[in-house]
């Protein structure tokens, strides 16, 4: 799995990144997590609200800080 967290470095984006890492760890899943801060790259996904979550180049959520439990459901 290749996970991208889109967001230009706001508090919420950092929170989402931390939640993603925590969810992955507790599920024991190996995955690459990349933080995308360049807004040209963010826009290439068509996202208007950050933070956004992208898994294997597919946008899964926009404008929301998903909780660790919600993330676990997505990663399973």
């Amino acid at each position: 799995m290749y996970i991208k967290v889109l967001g230009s470095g706001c508090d919420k984006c950092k929170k989402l990144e931390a939640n993603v890492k925590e969810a992955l760890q507790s599920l024991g899943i190996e995955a690459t997590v990349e933080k995308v801060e360049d807004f040209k790259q963010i826009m290439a996904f068509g996202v208007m609200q950050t933070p956004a979550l992208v898994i294997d180049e597919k946008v899964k959520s926009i404008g929301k800080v998903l909780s660790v439990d919600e993330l676990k459901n997505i990663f399973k």
Partner: protein
Amino acid sequence: MFVLEWLNNQLLKMEWLNNGVKWFVETVIGMGIDTKLGGSLHFFIYDVFKIFLLLSALIFSISYIQSYFPPERTRKILGRFNGISANILGALLGTITPFCSCSSIPLFIGFTSAGLPIGVTFSFLISSPLVDLASVLLLASIFNWKIAIAYVIVGLLLAVISGTIISKAKMEKYVESFVYGNTVLDVDADTLTFKDRISFAQDQVKDIVKKVWIYILIGVGIGAAIHNWIPESVISAALGQDKWYSVPLATLVGIPMYADIFGTLPIAEALVSKGVGIGTALAFMMAVTALSLPSIIMLKKVVKTKLLVIFVGLVTIGILIIGFSFNAFGYLFL
């Protein structure tokens, strides 16, 4: 009528709080509220409590409505309209789409990529920070309903007219080229449950209070200082009704400032109580909220200098006209 007036006084103007704080300052602390220090203390405590109480209640209910209008949906609705009706709708949707200045760039690109005319996007971007429902109710609480409604109308007019001029002037070529041709993500907006919307509203209250509390404290602090410490003669020399330069001065001071509309309201309140024209106070509020150095710097990333200058120029001229007209006809409202 009597019941309505009572509700207005107690819920919106919060007379119970006014009296409670008065009792607290006079009996518990033991200072008359007509003394300088007692008066400032009363203004500060009353305004801080009033703004935070109203703000939390308002943001909660408004966020609930907003959860029906995410930017993706607003974009879809706007795509169906042309010409000035698109500008009007853009300005109206600007008042209910949840939006913070930090996401103005992704929004600008997202709207433009989907083929919306940039004039419509500008109508949206101008009205969004300027006229939001919470600020309108706070205006009604601090001043009165007539001023609140007049503020909404002129704010929307400013957004519609500026956006229409930008549309008519064919400014598309002054937008950076990478803005066009990005993926347009189509998401379904109606998958939220009642519980989702409530938790969205709760999160919004937390986020917004966390973001604006400092501006409110600073704003109320300045307001309290103006209210009790700065002599009326000093204020009226700079910003008095009879000074033609009061409106331009208030606007120029306000433009580079970055603050929230909730922080500027107590300053406007104190200024008006010192005899400053309502137009001057509104011009200051509009200049602070509609234009700020950080938002101009952000916009610079997506539009060329010429369009940026036209945008700032149009909004500034609009604010000046609004300020002068309110000063001339303000007696109708107070």
